[in-house]
């Protein structure tokens, strides 16, 4: 119990792939490689052929197939097919590889292929000798070599055109009907549609005799133009079938373990034609077959801009609907169309064949569309040998605001009322006057002159501030103002002095200028100063020197001119102009 419990626990801890692997029978890789060889059938008549079959209990990849078989001269061997299968023997699985050669004798007789060595897993394995008896004439009906029969539905197709192919294994008197496993089609230039494969057991006539046969049907699609050599191979599998089988007619099935024999077929030739060029229709994307397009269905005909709507399209026709690619939607500024998504298949209804359903998602991007855009599509019909137009037609739609930007619709709107007239409700009347006006249509703030105008008040306030500052400074230092005013008055007095016409004017101007130049130093009103006050402002050396004398003479002459009747000294006063100018210049420098 403990061991059993432990095994259960171990199994539970394994992952699903591990459990699956461990549930499979073990593969026998240690058994020594052996080989069997035989002719099938071992006796043939003249003109008949036999299959020389060599079987190893080893994988095909481990076997180095000899380039040539040492056959007697009258016997020609041609390689036909090779394959490997897995057989359960006892409780182990073993891989068997089989090589088929076609033996065609050129003369009657008994031909024995001697034993020879073939390298398996790097070691030589002896292929036993085998004998084929070729009789000169048949005395009794003999069993012919069993082989598959390939029958394509047509031997002349276009590239891309689906072609049904059936592979048949007919029962013989010696071998009842049995299934074929690992059936495959050999050849280049086509693809096999394994999803279309069907198996059945039917009663078929052979040489007028009805015999049951295993029939495997599939579909191939040629992908290159030219000639295809198509053959088939598979293992006889007794009553073991790899999938569902349809049995029709009276068939007796024999039981018993299967005998796995590699069978092959004679190759058949199929001519593949290229598609005609130059007259392709718009929207051709490689669809080949006979198709038709049902009227497209729109989820709703009343749309809104930006809202998605689904367009459903059904294509009916050829059996290869599953390989049909819906057309790519066109690029249009008014619609955004997403590529079609498959919506499944549609069953046949009445005379309508089955179909494939596709959904397009469309989004109107403007109000203008009146219909969905046509989606170009076409196919090539091999039966007719021409292209067929399958364009998905437009579907009418209504957009509530589809009148925007449209001349026609605006005209319809205008037919209802006339904006600007007094009778039209909802619209303004026509303006009788131009109304408020402006030199510019735009914000003032974006114009440079607006900011320039803002600078004017700034400048005004700056000026006011400076003026106020100067005024305060003068209030704190009144002497500065007196000196400044004295300088200005002195400049005016000197100007008057320069323009003096006679001595009296000169003397008045000279006295006034001297008083103005000296008044700020006391401070005093200029008119209140006398000669002595002026002399006090001169340096001591000048006061006693010639400048002092000049000042005294000017004041004396002025007093004389003002108060005396004698004017004899006038000419002398006029001589003082040069000296007075020097004195005034010295006094001005002190201001």
């Amino acid at each position, binding site marked *: 119990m403990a061991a059993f419990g432990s095994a259960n626990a171990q199994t539970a801890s394994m992952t699903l792939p591990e459990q699956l692997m461990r549930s499979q029978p073990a593969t026998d890789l240690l058994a020594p490689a052996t080989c069997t060889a035989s002719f099938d059938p071992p006796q043939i008549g003249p003109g008949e052929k036999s299959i020389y079959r060599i079987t190893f209990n080893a994988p095909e990849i481990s076997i180095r197939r000899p380039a040539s078989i040492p056959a007697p001269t009258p016997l020609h061997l041609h390689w036909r097919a090779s394959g490997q299968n897995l057989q359960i023997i006892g409780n182990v699985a073993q891989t068997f590889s089989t090589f088929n050669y076609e033996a065609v004798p050129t003369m009657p007789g008994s031909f024995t292929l001697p034993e020879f060595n073939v390298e398996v897993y790097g070691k030589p394995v002896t292929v036993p000798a085998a004998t084929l008896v070729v009789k000169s004439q048949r005395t009794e009906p003999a069993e012919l070599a069993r082989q598959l029969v390939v029958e394509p539905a047509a031997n002349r197709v276009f590239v891309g055109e689906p072609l049904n192919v059936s592979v048949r294994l007919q029962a013989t008197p010696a071998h009842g009907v049995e299934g074929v496993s690992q059936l495959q089609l050999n050849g280049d230039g086509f693809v096999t549609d394994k999803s279309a494969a069907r198996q059945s057991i039917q009663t078929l006539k052979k040489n007028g005799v009805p015999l049951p046969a295993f029939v495997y049907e599939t579909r191939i699609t040629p992908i290159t133009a030219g000639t295809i050599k198509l053959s088939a191979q598979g293992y006889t599998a007794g009553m073991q079938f790899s999938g569902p089988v349809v049995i029709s007619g009276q068939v007796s099935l024999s039981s018993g373990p299967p005998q796995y024999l590699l069978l092959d077929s004679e190759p058949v030739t199929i001519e593949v034609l290229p598609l005609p060029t130059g007259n392709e229709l718009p929207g051709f994307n490689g669809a080949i077959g006979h198709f038709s397009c049902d009227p497209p269905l729109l989820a709703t005909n009343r749309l809104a*801009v*930006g809202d998605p709507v689904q367009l459903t399209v059904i294509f009916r026709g050829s059996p290869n609907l599953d390989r049909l690619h819906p057309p790519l939607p066109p690029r249009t*500024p*008014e619609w955004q169309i997403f590529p079609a998504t498959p919506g499944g298949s549609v069953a046949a209804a009445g005379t309508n064949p089955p179909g494939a359903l596709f959904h397009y998602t469309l989004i109107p*991007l*403007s*109000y*203008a569309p009146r219909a969905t855009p046509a989606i170009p599509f076409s196919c090539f019909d091999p039966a007719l040998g021409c292209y067929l137009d399958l364009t998905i037609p437009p579907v009418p739609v209504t957009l*509530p*605001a*589809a*009148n*925007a*930007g*449209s*001349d026609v619709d*605006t*005209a319809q*709107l*205008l037919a209802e009322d*006339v*904006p*600007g007239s007094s009778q039209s409700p*909802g*619209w*303004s*009347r*026509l*303006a*009788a*006057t*131009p*109304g*408020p*006006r*402006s*030199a*510019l*249509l*735009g*914000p*003032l*703030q*974006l114009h440079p002159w*607006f900011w320039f*105008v*803002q600078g004017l*008040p700034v400048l005004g*306030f700056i000026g*006011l*501030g400076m*003026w*106020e500052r100067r005024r305060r400074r003068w209030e704190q230092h009144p002497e500065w103002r007196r000196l400044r005013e004295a300088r200005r008055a002195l400049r005016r007095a000197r100007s008057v002095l320069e323009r003096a016409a006679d001595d009296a004017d000169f003397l008045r101007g000279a006295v006034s200028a001297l008083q103005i130049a000296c008044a700020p130093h006391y401070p005093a009103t200029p008119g209140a100063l006398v000669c002595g006050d002026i002399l006090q402002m001169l340096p001591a050396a000048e006061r006693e020197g010639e400048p002092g004398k000049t000042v005294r003479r000017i004041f004396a002459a002025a007093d004389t001119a003002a108060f005396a009747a004698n004017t004899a000294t006038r000419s002398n006063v006029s001589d003082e102009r040069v000296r007075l100018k020097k004195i005034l210049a010295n006094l001005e420098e002190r201001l």
Partner: protein
Amino acid sequence: MNLSIKKLLVLVALLMGVPALGMAEADFFRDGVVAYEAGRYESAAHSFKASLDKHVFAGTLLNLGLAEWQQGHTGEAIAAWEQSAWLNPFDPGARINLSQARERAGLDPLELTRCEIASTWLPPGLWAGMATLSLWLAVAMVTLPEFFRRRKAGWHQTLSALALGLFLLSLAPNIGVLTRANTGILTGKNTSLRRTPTPSGEVVVTLAAGESCRRLRVRGDDWLVHTRRGNGWIERQQAQLLRVE
């Protein structure tokens, strides 16, 4: 706000650098009205445009919009009415026409920010003038009494506070005016909004004439615009801004 005050405000706003109505402009306007009433809408639109050659008039723009609408030019009509409303927001005519046209064309106006909504209450020039006058009045009421050695009275401070408040209140509308100046109307029919500023750029959405847009960036002759249906690039000639550059 009664009508007389509105008229006064408009008058004040438009007195800033407004030239006199020229005879030629008046004649063109009159011709346009006559042509419109006679049903010659193309000729009317031509005359109204000629009247707007040198100066812009709100009434002329209103009539131009009507003439364009009659010709089926939805984009041009809405642009003209938007400009008329921009110049004279007190005139209900442009707003009525915009509302009616957008309803019939299934168009939505552009979403405006709060600043921009406030800017629509008065003409843009009035907002600018208000901000200017209120600012400098506030500054003057604070500084001038001191400059002129006058004692600061209570009314000085009251006026200064009022002016400062008015200035602060006018800041948001002025910002709105500046941003609204970059809004416009698509005039081209079925204008493709492209993801990149190239003719072969992927079309984001196709817009009808009359859709509103906001210019975000300029690159050469292409504008990056924001619309209600997304952002994308258009060509300059496919839209008309509210302001004339």
